[in-house]
């Protein structure tokens, strides 16, 4: 089931006009000429994501995958209540660092996007953007029941029920909330998957780009960004 | 004797100056200046005066040979003539100016003519 009934779709263009700063505007150059600026074209890269092949030599790819698995850099992005369970991983008791896991403040340097709890429509937009700004190979882990089926918010008007309709999820960690131990177990599983070469979420996202975009746009009404956020 | 004439001249000068600088009325200033001019002229002739001598005109009483012992100094007399005429000229000019100024503002108070300043 889709989250949204098409019958209720309204004329989005009218109701959610493009943000003012993204509408084409006319500016005067220093020389006095008038030029058109189309922000979405001029300021954002429009290229679609590419499918990146694996390394040509399998052993190299395996080596890379081993390194990727042992160097999981998490984007520090807490979406919901699950984020509270992430913090203990940095403490002496759990210390995820010893597994090569660390938190990076910028998506450019992170490989792993933890969707820590439910995503509201508003947060989804940010999550999508953050995900797209990460460099592949990259992984998505859904944390908690809410990311799987909406959990206790299954009938909410404002939350996302099935995360994998919007982002290529590599792994779910069930629970409401999953305890840090469960998270660690999840990371171990993710490592195994990566080492096995099964985590090709980035390529999957690129392959099924249209599908993901359609789903994303069906809930995010004020889509005020390019299709792919480089 | 000569001192008295001199002193008179100087007093006239000073009185004229004082009057010219304290009276705001332009005509009074002009009059004051003529007094001062007169004072100057008195001083001029007083300087040329020498006691016991006569006017510098050569005639039977004053033959050329003894002229230099008999006559007073003729030069200040010549000078004073010029000075008088010049003083007169300036006085006349000032009067004409006074007239112009009066026409300009219907006033003869010098403190009314101060547009040009600073």
């Amino acid at each position: 089931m889709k989250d949204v009934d098409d019958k209720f779709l309204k004329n989005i263009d009218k109701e959610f006009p493009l943000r003012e700063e993204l509408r084409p505007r006319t500016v005067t150059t220093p020389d006095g000429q008038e030029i058109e600026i189309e922000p979405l074209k001029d300021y954002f890269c429009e290229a679609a994501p590419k499918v990146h092949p694996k390394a040509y030599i399998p052993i190299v790819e395996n080596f890379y995958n081993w390194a990727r698995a042992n160097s999981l850099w998490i984007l520090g992005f807490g979406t919901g209540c699950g984020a509270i369970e992430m913090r203990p991983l940095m403490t002496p008791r759990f210390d995820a660092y010893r597994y090569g896991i660390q938190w990076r403040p910028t998506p450019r340097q992170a490989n792993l996007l933890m969707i820590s709890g439910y995503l509201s429509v508003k947060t989804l937009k940010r999550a999508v953007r953050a995900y797209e700004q990460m460099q592949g190979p990259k992984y998505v882990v859904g944390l908690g029941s809410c990311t799987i089926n909406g959990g206790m918010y299954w009938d909410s008007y404002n939350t996302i029920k099935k995360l994998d309709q919007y982002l290529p999820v590599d792994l779910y960690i069930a629970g409401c909330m999953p305890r840090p131990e469960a998270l660690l177990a999840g990371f171990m599983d993710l490592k195994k998957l990566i080492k096995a070469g099964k985590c090709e979420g980035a390529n999957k996202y690129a392959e099924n780009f249209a599908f993901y975009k359609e789903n994303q746009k069906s809930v995010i009404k004020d889509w005020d960004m390019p299709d792919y956020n480089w | 004797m000569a001192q008295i004439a001199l002193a008179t001249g100087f007093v006239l000068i000073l009185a004229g100056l004082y009057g010219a600088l304290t009276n705001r009325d332009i005509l009074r200033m002009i009059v004051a200046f003529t007094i001062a001019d007169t004072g100057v002229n008195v001083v001029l002739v007083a300087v040329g005066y020498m006691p016991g001598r006569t006017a510098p005109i050569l005639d039977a009483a004053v033959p050329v040979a003894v002229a230099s012992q008999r006559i007073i100094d003729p030069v200040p007399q010549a000078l004073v003539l010029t000075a008088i005429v010049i003083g007169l000229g300036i006085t006349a000019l000032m009067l004409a100016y006074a007239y112009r100024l009066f026409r300009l503002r219907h006033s003869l108070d010098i403190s009314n003519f101060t547009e040009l300043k600073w």
Partner: protein
Amino acid sequence: MVSPVLIIAIGLGTAFALGLLGSTRKTLLFGVTLAALAAMATISLIWLVALATGATETAEIHTAGVAPPFAINLRVGIAEAALLATVTLTGLLAALSLRAQLLTLGRGGMAVLLVLVMAISGLVMTRDLFNIFVFIELVAIATAGLVLLSEDTRAVCAGFKFLVVSQIIAILLLVGIIFTYHANGSLNIDDIGATPVAAQGAALAMFLLLIALVIELKPFPANGWALDIYTSAHPGFSAIFSAATGSAALFVVDKVVAPAGAEWLPLLTGIGLLSFVGSNVVALRQDNDRRLLGYSSVGQLGLVLAVIGQRDVLGDAYLYVAGGLVLSHAVAKAGLFWMSAILRGRKLQDWAAIRARAPMVLAFATFIAMLVGLPPFPGFYAKWDLAQALVAAGRLPVLGLILLGVLIEAAYLFRWFGFAIKREAPESGLSANMVDCGITFAAVAGGWALGWIWGAIPGQHNVLATLPVLAVVAFIALEPLPAKLKNVLAIAALLGWFALVYGDYDPMRLIFAVVMIPGGAVILLASFSETGRRIGFYPSAMAMYAGLALLLEANTFFEFFAAWEVMTLGSYFLILRGRMSEPHALSYMLFSLGGAFALLAGFALASGGVQPFALDQLGTVTAELAPWVFVLLAIGFMTKTAAMGLHIWLPGAHAEAETDVSPMVSGILLKAGLFGLFVMLMQLGRQSLWGVDLTVVLAWIGAISAFLGAVLSIFQEDAKRLLAYSSISQMGYALFGVALMNHLGWLLAMMFVINHYVYKSMLFLAVGGVYKRTHTKLMYQMGGLITLMPFTFVSVLVGIIAMSGVPPLSGFGGRWIFYNAIMDADLRLPLILIFMAGPIGFLYLFRLIHTIFLGQLKDPHRQLKEAPFWLVLPQMIFAAFLIAFAVLPGMALQRVDGYIGSIFGDQPLIWQGRAITSEFGYWNPVAIMVVIAVVFVAVFLILIAKNHDAQKVKQFNIVFSAERPYRPETTHFAWNFFAPYRKAMGILETPVVTSFWGGVTDGVNGAAEFTRRFYTGNGQTYAAHVLLFVVAVYLIAMGGVA
């Protein structure tokens, strides 16, 4: 030869005879008047030429067939002839200027004018005291008459005030004359002088005589009456009043003071100086052009009076000096008054109307330069000789006051010139007609001719006759040509001159010459990007280059100083061309003049009046004087290098100048100061004053400049200001190097001469190119231009790497030499500042490149193009040079190093192959370059191997905390870039120096405002002022006698 009496006879006879012609045929009357004036002028010119060429002797003319002292006699010597020529020519031209009024009034007015000119001529010629009185009264009455020619009704009031004072003068004069006669028994000036007097009261009589004549000179502050005349009279007449009457009155004082005796000279000097300084101060607050000219006139008269007071020390130079000043004043002031007749508005700002006509600007500039005493005009030569004589006689305070007065005068004159060039032109504009313009240009021609004559007098160095200055004149003549053609000619001229002279220079001069002359040519390449005719640019630029060229050529103090002034003048005009540069050009001029006066005083002190004094004799100055010479010269040169404290002119001047002017004034002009310092230190060496080693003081100033310049630079938002402050910092380094007084210190400074020229020119051109495209200099309004202006970016990149001293570019060489130099020096503490300045320099440079070229591109700039080719070309030449110089520093430095070694007698650097070794360290530029290049390329290849397929993204594709940027403006971190620095070190930004100079300016202006309240406008009060003045001087004089 025609008898000079004819001047009087023609004037008078024609005045009388006009009545016979009837009063209706006005044109005929006017024609006769002109003819008479022309005849008078011709006679005086014939005499002038005859006397000047030595064809005839000084003429003594007896009247009444009796020899003096018994009859009135006249004399025509060279001075009289020159004055007669001035007077009669002024009269002739003034008659033309007054033609409309004269034609309306008919014969009366013409007769009065003729009598006036005749009377002034008589005043000049007569040798009889009482005759002087007669002529003075004639002049006074005629003046009172001609004042009325003005359409301004206020002139009537002015005339009356004038008459009131004339009366007082007449009274004093007559009393003085008669008692002098009584004491001496003679009225003949020469006879009085020749006869010793013992009579009591003679001194007092002489005092009354002199003071009356002095009041005739409108001494400050007893001169309100005269100023009103200047303000309200017709300018055609004011020209006579200022130029002719004033000069003649001065001459009368000069005549009378000779028999009066030398004991009166100090009094005259005092009054003259008071008048000169006081009038100029008051003039600062004037906004009416004619009144300002009036103040300037009385000021100039005061100056000459002071010179008369100094005749005892001037000796043979007396006529030359006084004459130069008087004639400069007369020609310039007459010209300015005639110009003011052309202008309709009376505010100073209204002179902006002349901008529409380039020749008018030239005329204005000529007159102002004449008044201030800049080369090539006579006032300049006069000022020089005066300073020499005064210093030789130990009268430094007099010189100081004169220079102060000139500086103040320059302040308002150049401010006025700035108004004319920069302010919005009023609608009323010009009422130019051929005759008025012709009269003005007659004065201009007269000014230049005088300049030539004063230079051509034997024993002088004729500034106008030097090739570079002639080139400037040629470029004035070439103004109608298109700019591009003129540019070709200018470049050719520079290169040609260099080809002509380069063989004569020692290596150090050669480096300066290369930077200044061919270096200037390279910068001129950028001027090809300008279109149109660019009126005014080439003469100014060539004047600056001419000054620089002559500076290097100079062998004597005088040549050096003349070159210095030419350079200053040229660069002032150049700087003034900038769009917003009016106040900055003014402050540049004032600081430069102040500095130049320090040089003047220094040179005079050093030479002790001996002329000509060769530059390399500087070392022979006596030990007591040497430190003072050092101080004065150093102040002068440091004004040009903008050392901290004397720097406030620089940021504005460099930042607001035009695109191709900024590199000239920054890259090249600043080096003139360094050159001067080199010349000075080479000869004077170390000096100490009160136990303080002056080179240490210099080093401290250099260090402070280097540090504070850098600190201030990082807080600038304006790119060109940033570079300008950076220049202060860089010159601080160079100053420090020079002041180290060792071999490597000097080599360091030479390295800075080259490097700073190259990278600062390059950066200014680059920023100028950006400005040309973006029309802003505020860095935070730019950003992201790297893709649009790649070449400009490269030049800035190369420039900042070089400038910050990061290897491998040439700036590092400077730092290396610096470290080696300080190892030799005893100075340690100032080094802290220098050390700190280095990384701070890095800050502002990074800011420059980041905020302009990196970061976010702004909406309006999205379609900008690369800077024009002609702006980029010199930058690329510079960049190539920087890299080459970095690899092969020896090509420029090795010979200089040898030369400096010959001065210090050591050779600390060993140039071996490509490596340079010093006592302490070593430096192999080639190796550095190769290692860095190889490593860089290797790493780059690795990166390419991995990231060759990177997706090129656009400027908003940045991580933004899962949001996206809205506008480039809000995403560009640029304004107040070093905010933390401001928090930590902002205290250094406190504008102490600016406040200080601002306080000085405000103080002087306040004094001016206060003083001018003195002029209440009440004629009676003015008369009281005169009386007060007389009494005050009397008390002072008698006190002095007692």
